[in-house]
């Protein structure tokens, strides 16, 4: 009885965590392919990629914004690896060793 309760508790907690992590993501995926969805319907009424077309149409600025976001993120994260502070500290170590 106690073992069964233990497994129920573990399953419930793990299931709850998974629901809180993947539920919102599943919701985002559903909204991304929903064209029409309103209360009280539990699932979208019409499905399709209409809004994807809006995002990626030639007159939309979204693609350029996406490019800028990726560029900024890449430059920022790569600068961490080649920052003067890192190189500086390596040179400083070498200089200290050379200075004895």
């Amino acid at each position, binding site marked *: 009885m106690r073992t069964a309760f233990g497994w129920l508790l*573990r399953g419930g907690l*793990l299931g709850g*965590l*998974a*629901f*809180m*992590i*993947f*539920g*919102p*993501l*599943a*919701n*985002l995926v*559903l*909204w991304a392919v929903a064209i029409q969805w309103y*209360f*009280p319907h*539990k699932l979208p009424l019409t499905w399709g990629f209409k809004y994807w077309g809006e995002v990626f149409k030639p007159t939309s600025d979204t693609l350029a914004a996406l490019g800028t976001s990726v560029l900024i993120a890449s430059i920022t994260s790569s600068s961490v690896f080649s*920052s*003067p*502070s890192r*190189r*500086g*500290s390596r*040179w*400083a170590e070498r*200089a*200290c060793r*050379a*200075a004895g």
Partner: protein
Amino acid sequence: MNDRRLSALLPVAPAVAMVLALFVYPLGMSLVTAFTAPDGRPSLENFVKAFELYGTDILFTVLIVTVSTLLTGVFAAAIGGYLVLGAHPGVVAVLKSIYRWPLFIPFIVAAQCMRTFLAKNGLMNNTLGALGLVDIANLSGLLDWRDIIVTFVGKQTPFVALLVSGAMAALDRATIEAAANLGAGGLRILVEIILPQVGGVMLVGLILAFVTMLSVLSVPIMISGGSPTMIAVDMAFRVNSYSDYGVANALGFASYAIAGLAAWIYLRRNVASGGML
């Protein structure tokens, strides 16, 4: 001797210059602007206006961030504790594979997901309704400060849990096994043996989470842009709608004062641990 010292200091000069130009100078300028009236004389006018208009929001920000930090600590300790003490390898493996997912979701996407997930007719209420657990007609949505807290806790828990579980895994297992042999339960081992030993790492993780939550604009703006809201939203509004950098910088000053308190605790901890954390 002086030459040697100079040659050792010279290589760090670019780093110092970068910090001065990209961090200290803008910070100083924003402080000066915060203490300058529109006609150019030094005054506290911006602060008076900021506290009159946004005093509630400052308090609201402190409350939301503090509650979110505490909840993040509780969940991170629970996840880390189960990863170390869990007796069922299958459950530990599943937990390990799912808890880190939110780390890879940007704040803006997390806010957008949560906004639709926690709405009155969102997927959460619909699923609970379909399972027969709740009656949707009597439920309300959570699209206010509660949703901001849920999003912050959901996004920051994996980060703190990752740090804390690493520290927990590095502990000497002899003390844990000794406590277990003496009949201590999992919760007692976690609270009395493990958490006191990883307290420093937990504190550092929570401080970093606190400062990050304080500065996130996308979550409060997406979920609850109305009144009351968080300081970051008010700052963006003052700059974008009125080009009022004075009040925006006064609000920024309030933000650094709150973050500064967290940084002071962090630095004290850092000194105590010999710069290891």
